[in-house]
Each structure stands twice: as structure tokens, then as C-alpha cells.
């Protein structure tokens, strides 16, 4: 099938059996690839009520039709499963080289099913597929294991690996690749860990077939040309996502001390140019990327290297913990990566614990003697380790901030910054209604990347509560995740501002199927609605209550910074939801109507 690896690899870890079957053309037609494949396969194949940590849950790893091809940033891989963090849909995107290598091995998706009786790693070398013993790798950090496997198998192998966090059942464990790329969110690494899969090593030597070689070459070259000529190329190459640290600080969106404010008095020493000057040694791109946001850094103080930190990590392990030093943040980043825990959720859990400590809700007796004041770097390092090992106080935080705050009580739920059980990523939304709505309605919990609407808030008026804002969020939610479906990065469109229509002839030449963005957005809407149905199927009473923002954003205006005294009213958040449900074609309770399902071709799937 043009544009595809051509096969779905099923791995039953309980029995050790592996089966390759052809990728169904109708799956490619209706869901295209990547996140679309994941959402469909999760809905169809993981039985209702499956325990996220049980054998029935599946980890579905999918490439897309642009991945591995001569297309800018064609290096995106989707990891989907039932989330052990939220109990709903989890989908996390991984950059790097892994997705391309899957395609060169003739694979579009890997479906990991069951639970292995002992630690294994999945070995794929074109058609040679084996589960190999991983007893000697179990317990080790991700970076050392990747290096060990590359030395043993060869540099051309691409490795996805979990750390102790995934082995030990931390609810937000991640999957690491290429010494610093992560599928970070929702506990995809937790599911890999419970299945006892330490790593996946893949190597492929096959070409990816395309429908029209000349047309594809021309369209691919045209995409690279506009990227290279874009005004925004140089600053993005220099700073990557850290370019927004200063902007967020200035507009009051930089999470500070557990989102109690949006500007950090120590922010300036975390800005992109400071990081570039102090620690960055190499730019590091994902597959085919002309504008690499990956920055490889050296921390002289610690004598260590890390890929990063990128913006989210700077926010969550820097300003949100009251830490103003980029080397300290980078070192915390390295600990999280090597131990295999998501930097965003880890940072959020620690910032919540710090607020509890400063308010006297938790004392040193609770925290194993750690003085959890904001800014205490040593305590943060120790706590990351404790979380990953689920040791002592770390075991409480390893469950995620929703469960930890529920157990702790004493009003701490009100400053647990999460939606649907997922910790909010690094945009403070005290007064940014579109971004707040984006977090409230995001399909995995409070994650930013489906609808990065905060710039729109600033453009049109941050406190506006109007249908246009809601429409913008919905459009972004339908459109942006399509890049995760296609297997390419969205940032060339977002940050370099290239014309998205340039992808249309490329996709057509590659797959032989013409799809306009209007068609693609409809697929995006289909996936969005399917995942909404998945949440409802797995959670009795699912609906509006699951879409509520963290109370801090309507109860406690920041005392400092540019958003001091500003807040979104609770009633306004509800108005936003009303408009959102209506525009989506959902009931007032927040569920797709039969008409909407029928319009999107989902009626038969859910009948």
C-alpha cells in the first residue's frame, strides 16, 4: 500500500506469539494512520472495562503515511492505550527516528497484547521478529540501556525503552528513544512496563512505496524549500521551544509555584538565549526536520548531558518548582528521562507537594524528611528518584496528582492542577479562556498540544467568552492532531508558518489518494468523537464533570506578575463548555448526538 509499511505486527506477550498481518486498506481510508489507527484499534480491540494494568489493555504503536519519507519533520510515532493515569484514552507522540525505522521494516503499527511472564525486549530486524530475554536490562536507566542495545545490535537499530518508572508502575511513566525523545504523557510507559517489555529495537532496510515518485519528490522539495526560506527558521533553530519561555513569562502564562502565578521572578535565567549560551552543545533533530527544536545540552556543574530541556520541562521543573537555574532544571530533566517518568506530570506532582508542604498540609514526617520548599533543588532530585522507585513518599506522588490529593485531602484537591486526572502542562490559564477550554476538553486530559490556543487568546482578548473562541479551539483540535495521524511534526506549520496546503500534493503523490484539508479535518473530527465515546464507555457517568478546569483558575487570582488579580469566572468556564458542546454537535451533558455520529461515519462502529 503506497505510503505505508504495509503490515500490522501483533505481539501476544502472554504466549510469545507474533503475527504480521496486512494493514487493512479501509483502516487507512477512514483513520489514515498514527493516532487514527491507535484510536480505532483501542476502541475496537480493548474490551470495555479492561484494567489499564491488566493483560487486556494493549499498547498500540503507530506510524503514519508521511513518516520516514522526504517530508519535513516526518518523524512522529503515536503510542495509544487505556491510560493508567486517567482511566480514559491515552495517546502520546514520540519524535526521533523510531517511526521511520518501523516503516523501513514494513510495519505501520505494533500491537502489544497480554503480559510477558518475564522481562523481554522486542527485536525486529526486517522480517526477523523475536522476543528476547531482558533480565539483564531490567532495573536499568533508559540511557544506558539504549546505549547497550545499540552497541550490541548496531547503530542502525532504533530503540524505544522504558526506565525504572515504567517497571515500577508509576502512573505517568514514559517511553524514551534516541537519548532524550519521549512519548511522555498518560502512562504509555507504565503499560509497556506492566507487559514486562523493557525495550523495542527495530531495524529495517526496505523502501516505502509511493504512488508517484516524481510528484512526491517535487512536493517534498517544495516543502523543504519554504521551510528553509521561512523568516522564523533561524530563531527556531537556535532556541526551539525554549523561545516561548520569555513570551510566557511576559504574558503571565509561565506556570509559577504550582500555577499560583504566571510570571516568575527568576524566569529570566531560564530564557532560551540564556540556555543556549550556558548549556546547549548540539542541535538535535527528529527525522527529516529542517528546524530542530531538540537541543542537546551539557551541564558542567553535574558533568552530565541531556537532550533538552524544552519549554514544557523548563516550566514544570523550573518556574513551577521555583527553580531559576537552567543547569538545575536540565539535571532534573535528565533524572526524569533516565528513570523514565514524564517531566510534566512529575513536575506537577512535586509542585503540588511543595504547596502542601508550605501550607503545612504535609510535614517532614510525611515527606521522608525532605524539606519540600519551592526552590529546593536537592529535594527535587531526591523526590524524582523516590517517585520512579515508588518508594516512601514517592509512592503517593507516583499515582498522579488527582489521586494523591484525594488521599491527602485538607483542601489540597483545589490546587491539584489537572483535568481528567492528567496534570496540566506548562501554560498558566488564569486569564486565557481559549487555552483554558483547550485544557478542559483535551482528549487525554490537561495537555496543550491538541489546541495551542494561547496565542489566539492574546490576539483577540484573553478574557473573551465568545463563540469564535470556541470555534477556534475546535478547529485546532480537529486539525492539529492530524499531523500525529500523518506521522509528521506540526511545528513547521505552527512555528515556520508554512502553507498547510503544500502537504496536500505530497500526501496525494505518496498515497495516491487526494485529500484536502477539509477531508483531513473531518477525519480529525471523527477521531475526536471516537475518543470521546471511549471515555464515556470506560467511565460511568462521564460528561461535563470531567471537563472542569482546576479550581485554582476560577478561585484564586495570582498575587504577582502580569496576571495579578485576574481570573476566569466559573460561570464563564461553564458558558464556554455550553458553546463547545453545541458547536461540536454534542448533548448538553457533553456526549456526541446520534446525528453527529452518523455524520462522521461512526454510527455503525459504536452500535
Amino acid at each position: 500500500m503506497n505510503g505505508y509499511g504495509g503490515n500490522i505486527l501483533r505481539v501476544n506477550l502472554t504466549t510469545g506469539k507474533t503475527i504480521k498481518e496486512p494493514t487493512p486498506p479501509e483502516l487507512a481510508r477512514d483513520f489514515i494512520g498514527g493516532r487514527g489507527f491507535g484510536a480505532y484499534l483501542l476502541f475496537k480491540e480493548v474490551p470495555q472495562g479492561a484494567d489499564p494494568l491488566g493483560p487486556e489493555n494493549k499498547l498500540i504503536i503507530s506510524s503514519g503515511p508521511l513518516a520516514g519519507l522526504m517530508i519535513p519533520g516526518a518523524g512522529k510515532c503515536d503510542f495509544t492505550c487505556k491510560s493508567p493515569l486517567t482511566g480514559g484514552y491515552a495517546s502520546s507522540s514520540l519524535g526521533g527516528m523510531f517511526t521511520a525505522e518501523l516503516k523501513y521494516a514494513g510495519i505501520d503499527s505494533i500491537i502489544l497484547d497480554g503480559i510477558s511472564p518475564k522481562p523481554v525486549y522486542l527485536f525486529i530486524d526486517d522480517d526477523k521478529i523475536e522476543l528476547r530475554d531482558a533480565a539483564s536490562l531490567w532495573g536499568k536507566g533508559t540511557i544506558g540501556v539504549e546505549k547497550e542495545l545499540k552497541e550490541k545490535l548496531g547503530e542502525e537499530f532504533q530503540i524505544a525503552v522504558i526506565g525504572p518508572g515504567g517497571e515500577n508502575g508509576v502512573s505517568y511513566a514514559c517511553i524514551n528513544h534516541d537519548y532524550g525523545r519521549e512519548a511522555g504523557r498518560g502512562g504509555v510507559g507504565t503499560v509497556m512496563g506492566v507487559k514486562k517489555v523493557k525495550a523495542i529495537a527495530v531495524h529495517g532496510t526496505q523502501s516505502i512505496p509511493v504512488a508517484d515518485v516524481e510528484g512526491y519528490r517535487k512536493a517534498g522539495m517544495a516543502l523543504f524549500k519554504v521551510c528553509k526560506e521561512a523568516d522564523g527558521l533561524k530563531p527556531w533553530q537556535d532556541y526551539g521551544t525554549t523561545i516561548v519561555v520569555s513570551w510566557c513569562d511576559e504574558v503571565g502564562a509561565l506556570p509559577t509555584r504550582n500555577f499560583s502565578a504566571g510570571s516568575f521572578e527568576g524566569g529570566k535565567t531560564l530564557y532560551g538565549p540564556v540556555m543556549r549560551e550556558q548549556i546547549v552543545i548540539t542541535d538535535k533533530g527528529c527525522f527529516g526536520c529542517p528546524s530542530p527544536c531538540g537541543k542537546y545540552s551539557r551541564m558542567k556543574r553535574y558533568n552530565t548531558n541531556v537532550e533538552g530541556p524544552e519549554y514544557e520541562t523548563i516550566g514544570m521543573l523550573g518556574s513551577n518548582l521555583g527553580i531559576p537555574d537552567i543547569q538545575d532544571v536540565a539535571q532534573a530533566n535528565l533524572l526524569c528521562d533516565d528513570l523514565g517518568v514524564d517531566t510534566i506530570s512529575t513536575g506537577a506532582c512535586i509542585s503540588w507537594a511543595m504547596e502542601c508542604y508550605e501550607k503545612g498540609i504535609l510535614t517532614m514526617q510525611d515527606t521522608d524528611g525532605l524539606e519540600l520548599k519551592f526552590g529546593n533543588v536537592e529535594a527535587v532530585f531526591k523526590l524524582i528518584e523516590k517517585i520512579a522507585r515508588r518508594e516512601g513518599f514517592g509512592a503517593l506522588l507516583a499515582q498522579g496528582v488527582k489521586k494523591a490529593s484525594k488521599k491527602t485531602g485538607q483542601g489540597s484537591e483545589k490546587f491539584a492542577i489537572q483535568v481528567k486526572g492528567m496534570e496540566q502542562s506548562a501554560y498558566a490559564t488564569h486569564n486565557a479562556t481559549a487555552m483554558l477550554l483547550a485544557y478542559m476538553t483535551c482528549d487525554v486530559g490537561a495537555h496543550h498540544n491538541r489546541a495551542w490556543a494561547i496565542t489566539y487568546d492574546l490576539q483577540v482578548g484573553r478574557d473573551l467568552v465568545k463563540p469564535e473562541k470556541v470555534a477556534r479551539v475546535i478547529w485546532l483540535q480537529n486539525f492539529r492532531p492530524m499531523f500525529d495521524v500523518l506521522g509528521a511534526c506540526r511545528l513547521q506549520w505552527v512555528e515556520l508558518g508554512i502553507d498547510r496546503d503544500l502537504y496536500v500534493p505530497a500526501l496525494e503523490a505518496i498515497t495516491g489518494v487526494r485529500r484536502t484539508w477539509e477531508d483531513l479535518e473531518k477525519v480529525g473530527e471523527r477521531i475526536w468523537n471516537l475518543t470521546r465515546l471511549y471515555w464515556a464507555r470506560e467511565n460511568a457517568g462521564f460528561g461535563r464533570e470531567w471537563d472542569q478546569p482546576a479550581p485554582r483558575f476560577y478561585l484564586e487570582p495570582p498575587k504577582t506578575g502580569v496576571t495579578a488579580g485576574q481570573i476566569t469566572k466559573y460561570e464563564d468556564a461553564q458558558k464556554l463548555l455550553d458553546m463547545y458542546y453545541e458547536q461540536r454537535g454534542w448533548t448538553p451533558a457533553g456526549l456526541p448526538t446520534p446525528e453527529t455520529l452518523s455524520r462522521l461515519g461512526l454510527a455503525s462502529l459504536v452500535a
Partner: protein
Amino acid sequence: MRLYVDNAKCSGCRACLVACSLNLFEENNPKKAALRLIPHFPAPGVFEMKVCTQCGKCADECPTGAIKKNDRGAYYVDFSECTLCEACVPVCPEDVMFVRAELADAAWKCDLCGDCVSVCGMSALWIADEAAAA
């Protein structure tokens, strides 16, 4: 004319490799590219790229005369005349003469098509006269 690389600018993205394989073989297959990327990670954390200098030692060594000059002045492998003897491989000072019998039934090398330069977003690759570059 020859291809040059500035390793300090390379981000290891491999766009050059897939563009190269597409031009040489009409394949999307970085394993069949005529540049060699050597990542050095996790330490020291740098990319090393090897490119053909068009020194011609491979052509001098080739017993069948399969390595010829094209109209760009670059040495290329005439696939129909290559016998996969591998004589060219050890004499290449940059380790960018490729023979992988499982992947192709001829040796391959850089023919200076320039597609790698076109897709390199970091401007780490360029083509210039040796005289001008010196």
C-alpha cells in the same frame, strides 16, 4: 566541485539520507544513501557526517572501470558494470563507498546530485569548488 559538510551544524535529522536514496535508487531508504552519519551519543553528544570528496581513488582502484565521471565532474558508479568486488571500499579515505549486497546489486557513491543540500535545513551541507573552498 565537491560536497562539503560542517559537522557542527548537523542536527542528525537524516533528511539528506532519504533524499540521497531517492535520487540514487528511487527509494525511500536511508540505508541506501551515499553519505554516512555517525551519531556520538549520549556523550560527547555530536554528529559526525562523512561525505565524498570526489578524490577519485575508488575509480582508480575499480578493476572494471565502473566508476566514471558524470557531467557534473563527479565520480559515479555505472551500476551495470559493477561486479560487487568491493575493491573500491577499502581505498575510500572517507568511508563513503558503499557495498551492501543484501540491499543493492551494485556499489554506490555520491554523484553530486545536490538533493542532500536542498533538504538540509541547517545548511550543514554545500557544494563548492575545491579551489574556492580552500
